[in-house]
């Protein structure tokens, strides 16, 4: 199982804070997961076409080529605006 979480404007656009993805035998990258999510429907596709989105795996920022394994927590979110 892979846990996927969304934050801020992205969470609102998707109207989804988190979901789970069954881990199968195929090795997946963060980009692969993004593609899977985009394939859900038109809204998800449009939302994930935003190239400025950031991703993190297990609380560390990663890029799209990062490999995801079962038990990981994958996060997608817009550029951060704290401080």
């Amino acid at each position, binding site marked *: 199982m892979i846990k996927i979480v969304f934050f801020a404007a992205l969470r609102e656009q998707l109207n989804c804070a988190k979901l789970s993805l069954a881990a199968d035998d195929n090795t997946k990258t963060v980009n692969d997961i993004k593609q899977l999510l985009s394939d859900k429907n038109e809204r998800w596709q449009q939302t994930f076409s935003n190239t400025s989105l950031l991703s993190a795996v297990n609380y560390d920022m990663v890029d799209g080529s990062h490999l995801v394994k079962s038990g990981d927590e994958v996060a997608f979110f817009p550029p951060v605006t*704290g*401080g």
Partner: protein
Amino acid sequence: MSNHSHLNEISIQAADFNLADEVFLLEKHNVIDGAIVTFTGRVRNHNNGNSVTTLTLEHYPGMTEKSLAKIIIQAKERWDIGRVKVIHRIGELSIGDQIVFVGVTSKHRQDAFAANEFIMDYLKVKAPFWKKEKVIDAGQASENWLAAKNSDTDKAELWS
């Protein structure tokens, strides 16, 4: 990297903080560090010409603390600093409210200034916080997620 060692250095909280209390703790039993630099950020009343009424801060629990701990470790590797404290508030804030505090002590002022600004610059682009503003624009109330600034990304890259 142990989270434990950063327990006293990082606080993500809804409650307000008190500058004097934080500085007291940074200076307490600390007579080797002659310099202390603090940064405090507050909610301003204007953004892009519109009147801000409130600001709501969302974050990513767990990642927030981990990212700030990493930033503090990097600062300690680069500069000879003593104690560090980073506080970031979450939830709904009003104009004038304090949002963020960074305090750094050091033997020499240059290290405290540089490390403090570095921590703020990195926090701005690496710590998972997001601001949503309620603004009044020509009499109309609306909610907007703030857009990240390229200037913040550019400024953080100057340190690398």
